[in-house]
């Protein structure tokens, strides 16, 4: 019955699905990096604002950048999701329309709260508001993505929330699976935050008090992340083991414990080499997790929609436009990064000379 409710778009795909899928994973990894930093970074900065003020201050000030680039990068996977799976994505969000729409005003409030915290105004209140709202938004995303990958649940929710065949949109799909997927993301977020602090402390700062405080925090944060990730993963993993590629499951399972060992090593002997190793291992964990989520989604949905059966228009000229624009943008971003790094370095040297 469910398959009769699900209709793909008759326009077909502009390019083969593997290209779209690759871009979707790329975008999701980019989004995950920044989203992890705000999801774990905001509550961490809030809780440490008195005991570890230099770290908290640095995180508060960096948060607007994480938000700007994280929200922006989040557009990419959603865009390609709607090309690949409109028949799953739209019903899953329409059935919980008000909660899905609520993301927008909540995000605006959270974003301005982040700026308040960054500018040092009403920091505790602003950071509390932002932390709660960002976590709620994350949970809503987990809910929508879980439902989009579980079309068998759609008809019952539709009937329960219908009046004259149209839905009121006040339903929210919350169950153990949603919660576990969200907790896996929370766990990995603390790992990402720890890896960021190690990277920042070793490569991008001249402030000794910040560097020392950050070095002490990397291991506890990473281990906290591993515990949450590990517990949630142990409960969630078996439910998707038939759809989870072995290699990715192994990578996702090994990378974070290895990262935790490196973080302990970093606590004993902090150095650029160990920080770089930690970042590399955690990047592996991130990529494995992002790819695993996408592959589980595709395998969960292939019962209802086989991507390789969809018509392909071969709209390569628009793809070329995107590639050309992307290259120009990357060149310009490279130039901007160089200009900013040089200006930053000049400032650091200037301060060192003053001292």
């Amino acid at each position: 019955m469910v398959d009769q409710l699900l209709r793909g778009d008759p326009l077909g795909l502009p390019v083969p699905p593997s290209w779209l899928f690759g871009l979707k994973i790329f975008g999701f990894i980019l989004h995950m990096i920044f989203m992890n930093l705000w999801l774990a970074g905001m509550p961490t900065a809030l809780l440490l604002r008195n005991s570890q003020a230099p770290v908290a201050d640095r995180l508060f000030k960096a948060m607007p950048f994480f938000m700007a680039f994280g929200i922006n990068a989040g557009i990419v996977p959603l865009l390609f999701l709607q090309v690949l799976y409109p028949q799953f994505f739209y019903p899953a969000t329409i059935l919980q329309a008000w909660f899905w729409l609520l993301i927008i005003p909540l995000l605006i409030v959270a974003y301005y709260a982040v700026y308040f915290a960054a500018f040092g105004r009403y920091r505790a209140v602003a950071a509390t508001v932002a932390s709660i709202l960002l976590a709620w938004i994350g949970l809503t995303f987990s809910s929508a993505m879980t439902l989009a990958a579980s079309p068998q649940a759609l008809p019952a929710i539709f009937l329960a929330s219908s009046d004259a065949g149209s839905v009121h949109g006040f339903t929210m799909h919350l169950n153990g699976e949603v919660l576990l997927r969200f907790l896996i993301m929370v766990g990995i977020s603390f790992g990402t935050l720890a890896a960021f602090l190690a990277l920042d402390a070793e490569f991008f700062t001249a402030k000794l008090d910040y560097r020392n405080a950050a070095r002490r925090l990397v291991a506890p944060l990473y281990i906290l992340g591993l515990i949450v990730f590990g517990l949630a993963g142990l409960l969630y993993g078996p439910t998707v083991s038939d759809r989870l590629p072995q290699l990715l499951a192994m990578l996702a399972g090994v990378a974070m414990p290895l990262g935790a060992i490196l973080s302990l090593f970093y606590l004993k002997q902090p150095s650029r080499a160990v920080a770089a190793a930690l970042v590399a291992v955690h990047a592996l964990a991130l990529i494995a997790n992002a790819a695993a989520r996408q592959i589980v989604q595709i395998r969960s949905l292939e019962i209802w929609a086989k991507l390789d059966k969809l018509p392909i228009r071969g709209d390569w000229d628009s793809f070329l436009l995107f590639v050309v624009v992307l290259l120009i943008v990357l060149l310009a971003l490279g130039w901007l990064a160089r200009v900013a790094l040089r200006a930053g370095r000049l400032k650091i040297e200037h301060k060192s000379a003053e001292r």
Partner: protein
Amino acid sequence: MDYPLWYVPYLTAPLLIPLIAVPHVIVAQFAVGGGILLADLTRRAYGGNHAAILEYLHRLTRVFVLITVVFGAVTGVGIWWTIGLTSPETTSALIHIFVFGWAAEWAVFVLEIAAAFVFYYFWGRLAPRKHIIVGWIYGIAAWVSLVLITGITAFMLTTGDWAPDSGFFTAFFNPSFLPQVLLRTGGSIAIAALGITVHLSFQTDPALSKDLIVRWMSRWALAGILLIFAGGLWYLFVMPEHAQLNLVRAPILLGMTAVNLLVTLLVMVALAWGHFAGSRWITPPAAILLLAAGATAITTGEFVREGTRKPYRIDQYIFAPGVRSSEVKDFQRNGLIRHAPWLQYYLDRKFSVDVTLHGQALAPDDKAEVGKALFRYHCSACHAEWGYNGMAPILRPWTPELIRDTTRNLHRANPAMPPWMGSEAERDALAVYLARLSREKP
């Protein structure tokens, strides 16, 4: 009608779109024009070594970052959210046609944000030449972003030679693309100039040469207004026939067009006056009034653009209820319910008979219930039962016969309406429901 329908009582779900889209368009255009103006004003301030103006521009950039990067960006995502919830067939079609245009716009927006951050946070730490280049990268990226999005929004009104098997560029370079680029570029510069004027009006630093800023800015703004007139006129000529008909037929659209023209003229006169009179006219009430006039011009312009598009969501391709024009005959032959899988699923469970086949034999109450469901799917893209475009008050003086006759020829009764896209039995059920609705009290 491939998806479940979200019904918002009193408002209708699609009315949520302008609630988010109008503030977004105002802020987004403010960001685009602001990027260009900030780059040029900074260049002039560095050139003349105006320290006070540079200091002022630094403060102004902070306002831009706070308004555009946060509110502009999130409401932009918000439009996408809302159209996906309220018009999923249209959103899906646009995304399938323009996915790489949107992806390119994403890349350009990343550049816009990065440049805005470097421009603001490294103020005073970059050599003037480099700082100005960063400013121009910000301004140009914002404008390219506008151009890319305009290709998509213009397509919704004028699909031109596009057909479902056509390529991206046929859709992108549609007949109203260039007129809309001119219109929106001009609008962006003008609204940014008016926004900056409000900010400037609150400045009390005596060292700040407001006269100079106003003169620099009003040249840009006047050029922007000329672009608005050129683009607007061109736009009227390339509008599809049904859109032109909507414009002259619907008093509200005609009124909006008149208001749009009047406030644009008012702003033009004020800017021209400001150019010669300098900053004497820059008082907070006057500046706020002019900004409100500019925002009114954008709001009415968007309203007219959306209103004239009816009965289509995408010109010639998708009708407002989410039915592709190529499917209409099939809908009429075999019934709407058969083509709306979610509705059919609901009705099958509710009545446990195939209402498409046995609709005529249903009891009057059941028939009205089917009619209500049909109303939601066919009509609620533009009409609530009560509230926005509410059918109950509209139909109050109508007889059941008149309702029945009108539903037969919806598109003839009003060219902004689509033809009836269902079977005769379904139309009968709709008429029964509408007749009951007309007798209901709020």
